[in-house]
């Protein structure tokens, strides 16, 4: 047992039954992730990327195999325990930004801390800190509808990091953004990864994202076909204007 292991999947299999027919969304996937990784799942549409993230994020359960996340066996968790794991240790970033429209930027980022029962004064400080990270402190009182797509995704990042989770799962985070905004948020995430040591796992087919990855796992038809590690991500040089 490695002590500093974050995620370990053993023969992780997810089967969807469509009537008679059985669909293997994931087939015996063996993967492990350590702290501080900046990894991405790539592959064609329908290859099982989202399915993998959802299971690791305890939003779904495997059909077969074992999944260990932060020392917990996902397949054995109750609803409550799964929610607890997500609440404390896992942040999600989705393709659509999914901010709560009636709440301000500040309140959106505050929500995970309310769930955690953090006292108000500490919440305020931590929310502002998270907003500083994504350079939106001055927009704290705006509504999501008043922000651009890129800004919304930055708020979503702030919301994911505000509780300082060990793991952030990002499913196509750049799919709705233009190139400039995509690079922008990727650089923020790289910085978070470097400075806070947060582990990032992406699901993407966006070349821009792939350019930043330190590890690229290729899925085809629910199977891992390639698992590559880059010592220094190729794109980083070009964009390394130093934060």
């Amino acid at each position: 047992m490695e002590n500093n292991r974050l995620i370990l999947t053993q023969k992780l299999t997810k089967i969807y039954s469509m009537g008679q027919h059985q669909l293997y969304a994931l087939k015996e996937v063996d993967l492990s992730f350590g702290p501080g990784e900046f990894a991405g799942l790539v592959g064609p549409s329908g290859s099982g990327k989202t399915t993998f993230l959802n299971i690791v994020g305890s939003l779904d359960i495997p059909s077969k195999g074992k999944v260990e996340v932060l020392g917990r066996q996902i397949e054995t968790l109750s609803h409550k325990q799964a929610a607890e794991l997500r609440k404390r240790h896992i942040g999600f970033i989705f393709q659509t930004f999914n901010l709560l429209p009636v709440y301000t930027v500040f309140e959106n980022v505050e929500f995970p801390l309310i769930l955690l029962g953090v006292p108000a004064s500490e919440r305020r400080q931590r929310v502002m800190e998270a907003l500083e990270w994504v350079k939106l402190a001055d927009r704290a009182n705006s509504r999501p509808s008043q922000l651009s797509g890129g800004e919304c995704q930055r708020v979503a990042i702030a919301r994911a990091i505000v509780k300082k989770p060990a793991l952030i799962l990002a499913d196509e985070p750049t799919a709705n953004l233009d190139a400039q905004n995509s690079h922008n948020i990727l650089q923020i995430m790289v910085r978070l990864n470097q400075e806070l040591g947060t582990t990032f796992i992406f699901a993407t087919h966006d070349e821009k994202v792939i350019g930043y990855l330190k590890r690229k796992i290729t899925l085809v038809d629910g199977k891992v076909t390639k698992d590559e590690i880059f010592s220094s991500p190729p794109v980083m040089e070009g964009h390394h204007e130093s934060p």
Partner: protein
Amino acid sequence: MIRFLLKGILRDRSRSLLPFLTICFGVMLTVVLYSWMKGAEANIAESSARFDYGHLKIMTRAYAEEAELIPNELALVGVSELMAKLAKDFPQIEWTPRIKFGGLLDLPDEKGETLVQAPISGLAVNLLNPPTPEKDILNLENALARGRLPQEAGEALLSEELAQRLGIKPGSVATIISQTMTGSLALANLRFVGTIRFGIQVLDAQAILIDLADAQRILDMEDASGEILGFFKDGIFRQKVAEAIVNQFNASFSQSSDRFSPIMKSLLDQGGLADLLAMVQSVYSIIIFVFVLAMSVVLWNAGLMGNIRRFGEIGVRLAMGEDKGHLYRSLISESLIIGCLGSIVGTLGGLGIAYYLQVKGVNVASIMESSSIFISEVMRARITWFSAVVGFIPGLGATLIGSTLSALGVYRRQTSGLMKELEAY
């Protein structure tokens, strides 16, 4: 968390407005209807008590058996002795003897020949012999339409309607023709010094009101009266106390073997009043039930639509680690907050309208025309303490049912299923 929910409710008006208005409206109607039914109930009970049944009534057993025929030959005798006993045994009650009688009113022309005749229903109460509670019980000062109240023997009042019909002016003398207690013809001239309008159809058609002593003289009923009515001194009927008094009285005064021994009945024992009031009560119970049902369906739908619109929010909150049960409860709490606000506003509105209906009253004479129950033509709402509470039954009940049902979809669905739908959303 509650503060967080409140903010959401107040900002997302489109989500909360329809449920809020639904609840307001339903609660308001419930409060008004309830107060109105309470008013009707009180109207029937009060009118019946004042003009016919009393809070308590004593008759002979024989008289009681056919009371609607007014069998004065079976009247109570030795009334003054009985009155003295009653005053001693039941000092909390105001006792007053009454005689009802039927007959004809005969109006002569100048030559003394009959000009017109009309059937009358007579009521004799103590008008002239103080202290008498009858002026207050019958509210005579207010009922007086023309003329004045009787001041000496031989003076009487008749209903304004009858006076108009027969062309009798205050001060005219007319003859009443009736039957004495022993069954012979009773004739007497009375001076009608005033006319009255009680606003109760049954009475206003053909009532004449005379002094008890006159009636005893005319009808040969010395120290006798058809009935003795009892009223709680503060005017408020108390069923439990009344029943106790009835039992106590009947146990000591009434002998089942003696048809002429007195028997006491309470307001609710007479004329099927208890059944009538029970019916009124079941009507408003049904109304409230229907409101709960109808509003529940509307709120259920509103909740479903709201939850569909909020799929994104629900998914994100689950992803952020909110427990499904917690989310479910928060959706219900949110609805309950709206339900509470709606119920409060609806209740205030309803009480406002009910108050207006209580003060102003609505004249329902036209639909009362053939009614035989004692009910005042001017119906009023009556606000009781329960009026302020009753709206919360459908208000909160429907909210709870509606939101529980609509949020059940969220609760029962697999988290992964919700997330999938979120992706599509």
